[in-house]
């Protein structure tokens, strides 16, 4: 600052006119300070909230594991979950969470990437301007609506195809399929961003070498955008793992250790929703168990997020 002031001073000194003094000192702007403080506050609040959640979950889960009848190992390896009679094996809940999430990803990933590729590589700008908002409408549908869509549309459809005796009224497959539809816009829009970010020069080089549009898209653009697509995939998985309303409505309300997606089974989130809706007494193992499950759920999604960051950093291709 002083430096520039001196330079200006010199220039004005050489000028004919009377030197004009500019006050280039840092001006104190109170509103600026307030805004900065406010923004800092916002950032700190979100960090503190996260910390608070982790602390609270940890504290209550500690109470649960502090019970002499419950050990972390039996919690993680037991295959029966009936807190009322002292059976605390989380595997049935975890298993059903994984099955519904895998079904959701199997639906959403190929469809999402194909949609993204169409939008970014093939669609004319006009078509894209119509298709994209329509796709984004899906993202705005409340999950409770998806839940009833699964129960009253998808389940009867599955039962019609595979037979009433093979498909339960409440089952994991219908919730998983509908969850796939729910995360489709998330995956397609994140993948499309990744694909569009690939520099035009790469495509032009491929065309120049005689590649077709499909070859360019599949062999040049897709690998180049891989890091973004993997990140989209992992965010989709963690969204599916944490989804509550759809599974609470459509997958059933009894822990069940089964690998058959047409059976009813309760997911971790579904269990938490059901138990907390029934007003349990505080400080009973049943009540504390929902925090232990919550903590496990948090660790799973947290781990997935870290993985997604690590992968997108590892595979990032920097072109410019």
């Amino acid at each position, binding site marked *: 600052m002083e430096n520039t002031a001196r330079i200006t001073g010199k220039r004005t000194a050489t000028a004919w006119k009377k030197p004009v003094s500019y006050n280039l000192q840092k001006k104190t702007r109170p509103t600026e300070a307030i805004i900065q403080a406010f923004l800092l506050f916002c950032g700190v609040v979100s960090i503190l909230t996260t910390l608070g959640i982790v602390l609270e979950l940890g504290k209550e889960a500690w109470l649960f594991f502090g019970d002499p009848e419950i050990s972390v190992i039996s919690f993680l390896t037991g295959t*029966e979950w*009936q807190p*009322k*009679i002292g*059976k605390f094996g989380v595997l049935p809940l975890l298993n059903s969470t994984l099955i519904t999430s895998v079904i959701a990803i199997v639906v959403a990933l190929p469809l999402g990437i194909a949609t993204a590729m169409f939008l970014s590589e093939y669609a004319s700008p006009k078509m894209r301007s119509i298709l994209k908002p329509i796709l984004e409408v899906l993202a705005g549908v409340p999950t409770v609506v998806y839940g009833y869509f699964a129960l009253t549309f998808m389940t009867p459809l599955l*039962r019609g195809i595979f037979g*009433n*005796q093979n498909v*339960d*009224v*409440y089952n994991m497959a219908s919730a998983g399929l509908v969850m796939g539809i729910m995360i489709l816009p998330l995956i397609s829009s994140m993948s499309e961003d990744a694909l569009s970010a690939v520099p035009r020069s790469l495509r032009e080089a491929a065309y120049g070498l005689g590649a077709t549009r499909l070859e360019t898209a599949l062999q040049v653009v897709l690998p180049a955008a891989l890091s973004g697509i993997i990140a989209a995939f992992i965010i989709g998985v963690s969204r599916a793992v944490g989804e509550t309303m759809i599974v609470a409505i459509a997958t*059933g*309300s*009894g822990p*069940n250790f089964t690998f058959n997606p047409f*059976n*009813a089974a309760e997911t971790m989130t579904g269990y938490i929703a*059901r138990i907390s*809706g*029934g*007003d*349990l*007494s505080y400080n009973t193992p*049943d009540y504390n168990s929902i925090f232990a499950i919550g903590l496990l759920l948090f660790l799973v999604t947290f781990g997935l997020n870290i993985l997604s960051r690590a992968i997108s950093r590892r595979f990032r291709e920097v072109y410019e």
Partner: protein
Amino acid sequence: MRRVFTAVLFIAVLSVVMAACAPTATPTPATAPTEAVQQPAPTEAVQAPVDPFDINPADFSGDITMAGSSTVFPVSEKIVELFKADGYEGMGNIKLDSIGSGAGFERFCTSGETDISNASRGIKDSEIEACKAINRTPIEFRVGTDALAIVVNPENTFAANVTLEELAKLFSNEAQKWSDVNPAWPAEDIHRYIPGTDSGTYDFFIEFVMQKVFSKDTGEEIFLGAANLQASEDDNVLVQGVAGDPYAIGFFGFAYYKENEDKLGILSVDGITPDFDTAEAGTYPLARPLYIYSDAAIMKAKPQVSAFIGYYLANVSDIIDEVGYFPASQEAIDAAKQAWLDAQP
């Protein structure tokens, strides 16, 4: 900027002025008349006519908070409807939650949030103690009788009657398939739909079916250890499950069966079908009493709660069959009415 500042200042001044006025202006005139109206008037009104249960809901206002059994819920809901139709002013001030008997007592005795607790089982000693700890003495009012309905899918034509032993076995971890209980039944997995572990219906079934047939210690474990078990505090979830599943079996209050008669089949137990006569006579083995609970101090402090309970007892027997349950015996209702009279200030 200045305009905003003046607006803020104006609001601040306004709120200070209002806050200053409020305490001096409202309480003194407001409390005095209500006390004057509520103290002498009702006592006179109670003494003058012969029937103290001739309650006019239009004379009362204020909030009433109720929670508890999902079985009793439709009865209380109906009474609330009538209470409002008869002129109760406090529209929307009656809060009624269907959360299960156990959770209902939790709110009534532990957190003390509710005025009335609905229950499909008698209060437990531990719950009475919890109530005492917050200076509440629960008073029991019998309001009706339920015959627990054992329901199956309408496509189920193989089972029409079960014995109590068969019923317990159907819900035990000892039977995987229907044929395990009775060889005449198909070799298909039993799909069980039960009320949540916090409900009075669950407790009743454990006590009067599982523990009776097995033993007191093992009944619950055998029950919860069974496969294909769906538990929900929401009876409609159970109705939907049984209605769509040919090898399902479930149980809940009779009213939920009545409401969905076309979608469900019902089993007789030990040869007895649940209906008015068998529930009243107590020959149906799964007939059980329905209650509401309150406390004399609450009824005194909130005349509207007392009036509501009086109105409930006076009318419940006339409407309960509409809801799908059965009236309690005259003696039981008379005892409840006496308890209400005793609780009057």
